[in-house]
């Protein structure tokens, strides 16, 4: 096994910061956040507190820009406005928000905090593998707890959106922890992907709600469609025995 150092994902982070700063390719910000999440899991596997908060900050601070990138991609494929005027209002609104989010992202990506974070990660001591393996149990435990909260197998039970999002996050962190320890995480990846698609729907619905408030555009039909799709996905996923057994 190779030593547990941040090197591979630190390189990934450093490679994508200039792309994110350029602001043309949405993968820039997305991959900076992916690297930030993976590096945070590594720090937690090592039992560290230093740099954990900085990595959490990095991921959160770029979240708005990422949500808007996702919304722009979705609207490019499936415009939700019914009229040309509506479509124009959506485009104007989204362009304005995206510009604000880019400015915020620029501040984050050029901050002394990110500069310091990258410098600190470059000289981090390799993690003790035994310590990391002991920490892995805590990641599994978080998934079990999130699962208990999220899943109600009764057919008429309401879908708990926040709990599903928490489950997705716990699952993603467990997958990343397994990746660091070179354990097979493929079953976790497919489930995390399915939960991720559901969470994206919620984020889109929220942004459409912002649009409605800001521009007076009627997005209720689009929101209803998103919510219906979300409920169907959740019910299908969380009430399927195979999915549950894979999680447990």
């Amino acid at each position, binding site marked *: 096994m190779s030593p547990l150092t941040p090197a591979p994902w630190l390189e990934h982070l450093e490679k994508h910061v200039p792309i994110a700063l350029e602001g043309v390719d949405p993968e820039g910000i997305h991959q900076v956040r992916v690297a930030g999440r993976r590096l945070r899991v590594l720090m937690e596997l090592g039992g560290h507190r230093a740099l954990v*908060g900085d990595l959490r900050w990095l991921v959160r601070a770029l979240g708005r820009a990422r949500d808007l990138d996702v919304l722009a991609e979705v609207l490019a494929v499936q415009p939700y406005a019914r009229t040309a005027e509506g479509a124009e209002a959506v485009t104007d609104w989204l362009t304005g928000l995206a510009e604000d989010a880019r400015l915020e992202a620029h501040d984050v990506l050029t901050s002394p905090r990110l500069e310091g974070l990258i410098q600190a990660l470059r000289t981090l001591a390799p993690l003790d593998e035994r310590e990391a393996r002991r920490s892995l149990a805590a990641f599994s435990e978080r998934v079990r707890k999130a699962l208990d909260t999220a899943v109600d197998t009764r057919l008429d039970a309401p879908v708990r959106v926040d709990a599903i999002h928490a489950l997705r996050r716990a699952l993603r962190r467990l997958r990343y922890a397994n990746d660091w320890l070179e354990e097979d995480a493929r079953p976790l990846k497919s489930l995390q992907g399915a939960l991720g698609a559901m969470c994206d729907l919620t984020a889109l619905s929220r942004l459409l709600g912002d649009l409605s408030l800001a521009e007076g555009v009627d997005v209720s039909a689009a929101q209803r469609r998103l919510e219906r799709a979300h409920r169907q996905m959740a019910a299908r996923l969380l009430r399927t025995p195979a999915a549950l057994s894979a999680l447990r």
Partner: protein
Amino acid sequence: MELFLIRHAIAEDGEDDDARPLSARGRKRFKEVVGALDALGVRFDRVLHSPKRRAVETAELLAPLVDGELEVTALLKEAPRDKLLGQLHGGAVAVVGHEPHLSSLLAWLTVGEPEQGRAFVLKKGSVAVLAGEPGPGGMQLLALWSPGALRKLNG
């Protein structure tokens, strides 16, 4: 606000200054400093630290005293400037850094002149306690504890 300026603990020698870890002795002695601060009831809502490895490791040892977050900043690798003062907010904040910049910061905050830093001696693992507004000359030096003094305070 209360500001605690803390010089990193004793580190090993090495060619790459950024990568020098704490020595076993430095780690042990600084744990005693943390124990003494704990006994004095010191708690931090934030810890700002330099990205150099010895400062990261010193900040990590302070973690049991931190209710909020540890935050790294490249500003603590260099001479103090306005941007660093802008980062000093909170109720009880610790700053883990290096000499001669930490003494310059101490002088800037207490007498308004960073170049007076040479008037203050901050040994490795020392803690300076300041109170007031974190601007030039806006703070008062309440205490300057060497690691040895803290160990004695802790009995």
